[in-house]
């Protein structure tokens, strides 16, 4: 399955901050085909560092999509049945408008003059894309981590457009711990002299700061168990300690590699803006309780969390389920056993596949 990225431009979008961003572009891919009634569309929402390339082999890079194990013929999101769409988020750096885009007023990259965006703003742009594609109602919205936040926001902001929602390993509001890790990442970037207040475009990017931010991120995506299993105390390419500060341990060299690799594909300012959007995310912000916010929600839900995920612990998913239950909403919830930590939603796909397939089948059947 060769995947081709498309872009579409809209005149403007009004942001939560009150700023009118104009113009605004969104990059998207799709897999499978839309039926004649436009009733089989599933919107997949990517996590923090993801992009529109969710499945298949990218025409541009030759790489598989970030959820290729879940999306495709016969997979959890079966492209023989469903039309699956994924777009790069607003503020991103993979084809959608973000701080690295050119501000038409100045002819220069927006950099730190780019307006601060929110999860709700990301969803607003996705809604424009869905309208543009002629889809009135989505059979499902789904995503893990930040993708799950967008799925929740969709169900609340556009209840008439969402038949089912599958938020995975996510939360209705970022916790102090989640904000704390994001802040460490941001400070690492801003402490890099190459960051230059965000005006590094055309020059050296803040590669060291961004790499450190990514290293911290990777630690939070794993678990004590998965790190022990993957690295233990193994040394990297040596029999004895080097008695220096080169990478001795495999875990060090892994993190350094991940950090370096990230710099090639991600924009440091996007890191700042997107983590800020996650930190601002709190579905209850405008109301007294989560249950009150979820009152207008009509979608049926499948909520999933993972036992070893300490970044988005199960209690956060259970909070969502409890609030939905207060309205007697149709909600299924399962805590899946996994050693992979937060990464489980990307890695541990066998059981997710059975659950999601069954949930989508029954959703599609109930609708028809």
């Amino acid at each position, binding site marked *: 399955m060769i995947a081709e990225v498309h872009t579409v431009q809209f005149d403007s979008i009004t942001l939560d901050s009150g700023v009118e961003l104009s113009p605004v572009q969104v990059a998207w891919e799709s897999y499978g085909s839309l039926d004649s009634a436009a009733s089989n569309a599933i919107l997949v929402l990517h996590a923090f560092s993801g992009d529109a390339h969710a499945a298949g082999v990218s025409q541009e890079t030759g790489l598989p999509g970030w959820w290729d194990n879940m999306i495709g013929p016969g997979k959890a999101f079966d492209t023989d049945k469903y039309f699956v769409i994924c777009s790069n988020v607003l503020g991103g750096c993979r084809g959608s408008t973000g701080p690295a885009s050119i501000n038409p007023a100045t002819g220069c990259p927006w950099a730190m003059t780019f307006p601060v965006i929110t999860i709700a703003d990301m969803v607003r742009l996705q809604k424009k894309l869905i309208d543009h594609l002629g889809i009135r109602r989505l059979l499902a919205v789904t995503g893990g981590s930040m993708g799950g936040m967008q799925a929740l926001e969709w169900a609340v902001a556009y209840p008439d457009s969402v038949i089912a929602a599958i938020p995975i390993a996510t939360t209705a509001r970022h916790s102090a711990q989640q904000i704390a890790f994001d802040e460490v990442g941001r400070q690492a970037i801003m402490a890099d002299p190459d960051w230059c207040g965000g005006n590094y475009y055309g020059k050296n990017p803040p590669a060291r700061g961004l790499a450190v931010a990514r290293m911290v991120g990777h630690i939070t995506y794993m678990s004590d168990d998965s790190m022990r299993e993957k690295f233990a105390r193994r040394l990297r390419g040596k029999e004895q300690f080097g008695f220096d500060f080169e990478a001795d341990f495999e875990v060090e060299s892994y993190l350094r590699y991940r950090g370096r690799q990230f710099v090639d594909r991600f924009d440091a300012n996007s890191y700042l803006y997107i983590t800020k959007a996650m930190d601002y995310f709190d579905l209850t912000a405008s109301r007294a309780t989560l249950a009150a916010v979820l009152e207008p929600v009509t979608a*049926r839900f*499948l909520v999933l969390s993972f036992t070893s995920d300490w970044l988005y612990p199960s209690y956060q998913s*259970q909070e969502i*389920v*409890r609030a939905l*239950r*207060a*309205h*007697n909403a*149709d*909600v*299924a*919830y*399962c*805590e*899946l*056993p996994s050693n992979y930590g937060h990464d489980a939603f990307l890695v541990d796909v066998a*059981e997710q596949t*059975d*659950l999601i*397939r*069954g*949930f989508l*089948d*029954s959703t599609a*059947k109930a609708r028809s």
Partner: protein
Amino acid sequence: MAAPTQPRIDPFVLDVLGRSDYAIIGELIPPNSAVLDLGCGEGELLAWLAANKRVKARGVELSGPKVRKAIASGVSVFHGDLLDALAGYPDFAFDYVILSQTLQETAEPLKVLRDMLRCGRKAIVAFPNFGHWRVRVAHLFTGRAPRTKLFPYDWYDSPNIHFLTVTDFQTLAAQEGWTIEREIFIAGKRRVSLLPNLLAETAVFLIRRKN
């Protein structure tokens, strides 16, 4: 001849579910009702009710592997504790709340029953009858915690932590002011009408709060 109002055990239901208490519950629940099944296992009963009686089906189950099978078969099940789940539902969210073969395993059975009758208009409770003569005989002659076909476990690995009889339940219902709308007693796949506290292996009660 059986009275015409008695629910009949549909042989098809028996085949599908293989459990006669399920069969009776399947018969008791009218079409299009809202049903919550506590300790729903793999959701077989709920799936059957949804497919055959178009009920709005919800379940609660503690065992992860069972929850996964239930959700994979399209049933909306919550993975967690009964009391925690019950507490979250609004009053009278359901027409029927079912507790089948689980009452004897719950830590706080009275709390569970009371909350079932808060969030459900009616409750259906099925449990193994500890008053059955085989249990009594086993206990009397062995002097040990009884092990029978119905209670096959050793005392140390039994999931059953409360042992109640038909009479115990009827007494509790009177004490709590619950109306017993129906009571159905079974031994194997047969209905029992005489001396249920002695002869019934399983009891199924349909109860509601007195108005």
